[in-house]
């Protein structure tokens, strides 16, 4: 007799569970992505405007806030997805024993982990949508191409969600997440061509930054908001897809080792 499939559409049931919990505190979940761009744009628009007038991005001169606003979309995708599959998934797995209960149902480890990562990406899309609304209303996303930010956010959410889940699979206590956050996520947040173009860095540092997924995500959100999507954008998307695939494999291997005892 053939063996049962390890992966089916049943994973949506776990995704729906997370959506149900998210909806209960939607107001709290909705606030940060809407307020954050306001705060940053006020700070950078008013405070920095005297210091930096123009930046040059990919050979194009532009106002600093035009350069920076789309970066926030990329950063919020990273934070939303990574925090969901690191802290939140860890709490469900370790403290709430939710995965133990799930494994007594027809669900498999593979379905649970994919559902968590896809949910992380979904959260990222919701946050990016709200933030895009604010950014567009303020005039920082003048092109219709800005709508492509939504699928881009999903792809980026998968990449960072998988990265968070792979981290969770090897994390023994919740305090340990400080390490990847301060050593990987925060530097990535600062050095991915988000706050300033990579052209401002020495060549060696700039080339190092191109292996960071947030760099590729920020390039994509900026191109989309400014209507500059091009064949080169596909390269960035491909990088994120490969990154997501690698970390998905690592997540599944780590979680199988951890949960199947």
């Amino acid at each position, binding site marked *: *007799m*053939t*063996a*049962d*499939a390890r992966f*089916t559409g*049943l994973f949506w*049931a*776990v995704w*729906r*569970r997370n959506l*149900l*919990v998210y909806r209960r505190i939607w107001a709290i979940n909705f606030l940060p992505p809407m307020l954050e761009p306001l705060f940053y744009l006020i700070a950078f628009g008013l405070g920095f405007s005297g210091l930096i007038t123009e930046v040059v991005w990919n050979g194009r001169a532009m106002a600093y806030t035009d350069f920076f606003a789309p970066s926030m979309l990329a950063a919020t995708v990273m934070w939303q997805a990574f925090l969901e599959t690191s802290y939140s998934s860890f709490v469900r797995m370790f403290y*709430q*024993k*939710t995965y*133990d*209960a*799930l*494994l*007594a*149902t*027809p*669900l*498999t480890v593979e379905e649970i982990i994919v559902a968590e990562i896809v949910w992380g990406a979904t959260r990222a899309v919701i946050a990016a949508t709200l933030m895009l609304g604010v950014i567009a209303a303020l005039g920082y996303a003048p092109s219709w191409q800005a709508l492509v930010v939504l699928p881009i956010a999903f792809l980026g959410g998968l990449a960072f969600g998988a990265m968070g889940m792979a981290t969770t699979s090897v994390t023994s206590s919740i305090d340990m997440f400080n390490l990847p956050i301060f050593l990987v996520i925060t530097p990535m947040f600062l050095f991915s061509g988000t706050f300033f173009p990579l052209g401002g860095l020495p060549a060696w540092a700039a080339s190092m930054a191109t292996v960071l997924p947030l760099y590729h995500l920020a390039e994509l959100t900026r191109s989309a908001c400014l209507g500059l999507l091009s064949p080169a954008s596909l390269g960035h998307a491909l990088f994120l897809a490969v990154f997501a695939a690698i970390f998905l494999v690592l997540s599944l291997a780590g979680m199988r080792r951890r949960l*199947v*005892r």
Partner: protein
Amino acid sequence: MEQPHDEPILAVSGARKTYGAFEAVRDVSFAVSRGECFGLLGPNGAGKTTTIRMIYGFSPASGGSITVFGQDIRTGFRRIKSRLGVCQQGNTLDPDLSVLENLLVFAGYFGIPRAEARIRADELLAFFALEAKKRFQYEELSGGMARRLMLARAIINRPELLILDEPTTGLDPQSRNTLWDRLLDLKRQGLTILLTTHAMEEAERFCDRLCIIDHGQVVVTGEPAGLMAERVGRYALEVESPEEAMAVHLAEAGIRFDRSGRRLIAYGDDKAALLALRERFCAESGFIRTATLEDVFLRLTGRELRE
């Protein structure tokens, strides 16, 4: 594929589970037939929970074979688990959800359509006297309510085999009795149950058959009454700090007895003979009682502490 009716619902054969050098389960075999309540008894660390986890596919067995509903758990895990109800030992309710949501969301994990899940959830809430609590959040539930909800959740998929891992441990007598009533109802409806417990009263009350496992191996299998008759007899004479002459006499006369600290317990079917012993050695401190499954359990697994 439908299995023949006389085939056991669950067959565990030579199951083994090792963690590195540690053998949690060495060799466990038993079979459970349809409609039966089968008990898995043993001291802490005997391998009960590990055995159960192998049966519901949580832990892959290191050796032996496990078939449920005629299918191998290694290949038919999804088909098996969709027909299985599992009530785990610890509380694994979803703390982010209300009582009702816990049932509805769990039904979703079995692919049960929402409308059908609603109907079943309402039935179960009524059955487990949780109707008034259905909007309760997790923190508002008492230990007894939480355990009833665990049980309700475990049967939302209308399982053919219900696995209960120490369902009443830590409950107060009221909650325990309520839970027992519900379990008895389920049993009368013909549900097949696999139960682990170290509450001997519970095992005596529910189990048609049981096996006692210790150090990862089956020590004995049988019906509770049969095991009691065979291993201890109907009565027990219990004495606090008896004179040594008593033990010597019992040994010479071939009467079964055990010692536990300062206590001595002699067993037998003949009440008059035990009364005579009491008269002779311990008229003051000895008393006669009905033998219990606990006597069998302690005879077979020893009286020393398991920690």
